[in-house]
C-alpha cells in the first residue's frame, strides 16, 4: 500500500463521505416519516389506505433496492417524471426504508397494551391525542433498537446510488480503480470511510439494545 496515494486521495473521499451522509440522512428522515404514517394507518385500519399500505410494505421489502432505484431513475422519466440523481437516491431510500421502518413501528405499536388506548379514551383524549401523548411515547422506546438497525441498513444500502452515477463513496472508489488502478488504496479508504460512519451507529444500537434487554 502506498500511503502517499492514500493521503492524496483522502480529500476525494471526504467529499464523497458528505454525499453519502447527505443522501443517507435525507433517506432515513423520509423513511421514518413514511414508516410512522404507514404504521398508524395500519393500526387504525383506515379503509383503502390500509390495503394500500400492506401492498406497499410487501413491495418495498421484497424487491431489490437496485431495481427500485433503476425504476425511479430510468423508468419514471418515460412517464414524464424526471428526478435529479440526489432526489432519486433519497426517494429510493425513503421507499425502501419506509417499508422496514413501518414494520418496526407497527410491531412496537401493537405491543402497547389495548388498555392504554382505552384508558386514554375514557379520560377524554381524542384518538390523535391518545396516539401522540400516550401510545407513541411508549412504542418509541420499544421500537428504538429496530429503528437503529434500519438506519445502519439504509446507510449501507445508500451505496447502490453509485449505480446512477451519484458521486458517493462507492462511486469515487470505483472511479479511482477504473482510472488509475490504485485498487488497494481506494478499497482501503472505502472500507475506512464506511467504518467511520457505521461503527458508531452500530455501537449505539447495541448499547440501546442491551439497556432494553436489562429492563425486561
Amino acid at each position, binding site marked *: 500500500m502506498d500511503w502517499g496515494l492514500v493521503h492524496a486521495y483522502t480529500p476525494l473521499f471526504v467529499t464523497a463521505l458528505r454525499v453519502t451522509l447527505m443522501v443517507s440522512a435525507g433517506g432515513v428522515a423520509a423513511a421514518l416519516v413514511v414508516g410512522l404514517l404507514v404504521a398508524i394507518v395500519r393500526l387504525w385500519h383506515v379503509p383503502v389506505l390500509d390495503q394500500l399500505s400492506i401492498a406497499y410494505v*410487501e*413491495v418495498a*421489502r*421484497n*424487491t*431489490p*433496492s*437496485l*431495481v*427500485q432505484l*433503476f*425504476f425511479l431513475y*430510468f*423508468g*419514471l*422519466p*418515460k*412517464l414524464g417524471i424526471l428526478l435529479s440523481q440526489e432526489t432519486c437516491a433519497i426517494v429510493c431510500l425513503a421507499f425502501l426504508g419506509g417499508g422496514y421502518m413501518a414494520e418496526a413501528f407497527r410491531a412496537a405499536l401493537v405491543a402497547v397494551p389495548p388498555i392504554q388506548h382505552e384508558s386514554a379514551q375514557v379520560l377524554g383524549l381524542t384518538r390523535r391525542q391518545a396516539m401522540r401523548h400516550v401510545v407513541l411515547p411508549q412504542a418509541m422506546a420499544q421500537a428504538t433498537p429496530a429503528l437503529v438497525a434500519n438506519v*445502519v441498513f439504509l446507510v*449501507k*444500502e*445508500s*451505496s*447502490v446510488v*453509485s*449505480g446512477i452515477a451519484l458521486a458517493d463513496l*462507492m462511486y469515487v*472508489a*470505483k472511479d479511482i*480503480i477504473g482510472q488509475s*488502478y490504485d*485498487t*488497494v488504496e481506494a*478499497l482501503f479508504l*472505502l*472500507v475506512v470511510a*464506511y*467504518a467511520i460512519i*457505521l*461503527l458508531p451507529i*452500530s455501537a449505539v444500537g447495541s448499547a440501546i439494545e442491551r439497556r432494553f434487554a436489562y429492563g425486561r
Partner: protein
Amino acid sequence: MGAEFLLQGATIKRLLVGLGVTLRISLVSVALSIPFGVLMGVLFTRKNRMLQVVLRAYLNFIRVMPQLVLLYVVFFGSATTLGLNFSGEVASIIVFTLWGAAELGDLVRAALESIPRSQYDSSYVLGLTQRQTFLRVILPQALSRLLPPSVNLVTRIVKTTSLCMLIGVVEVVRVGQQIIDYYRFDYPQGALWTYATLALLYFCICWPLSMLSKWLEGRNTR
C-alpha cells in the same frame, strides 16, 4: 401500451436465463453458508475468550460493510493483492457465503442461547445421553426458533444478488438492461416496463419466502 417487446423474440427466455444465474448464485451461497454458519454459531457458544473476540470482530466487520463494498474488495482486491482472478460469479458467491455464514452464525448462537440451562439438566436427570439431549431436546427447539429469521436471510441474499451486475455478472438485472438497450429505438418506453418486470420477478421469489417466514414465526408464538 409499449410493453409488447416483453413478449417478442427471446426476451422472456433471456430473462429466465438471467434469473437462473441469480438463483444459482443465491442457492450456492445459501448452501455454503449453512455449514459455516452452524459451525460459527456453535463456536460462538464456547466460552473461549480469544475465539469470542475474533468471531465478534468478523461479524461486526461483515455487518457494517455494505455488500457492494465487500463485492469490490473480493473482486478487485484479491486480484491486486493475492493475484487471484475470480470471475464475477465466484467473487459474488464468496461474498454472499462470508456474509451469510456470519449472519447465520449469529442466528444459530441466539437460538442455542435461548434454550434455558434447565432443558439440558432435566434431560440428563431423565437419563438421556449428551447426544440424545442435543438431537431430541435442544435441536428441535433451537430449529423452530432459527428457521423464521433464516428464511428471511435467504430473501435478503436473493435480493442482494442484484448487486452482482455492478461487478460484471450477467444476472437478471443485467439481462434486463441488455433488453432495454436492444429495443431502445423501437420501444423507447422499455426501461419502465423492464424494471417493473424485474421487480415483479424478484417479488415472486421473495414474497413467498417472507410469508413462509412469517407463518413459521406465528407457529412459534402460538
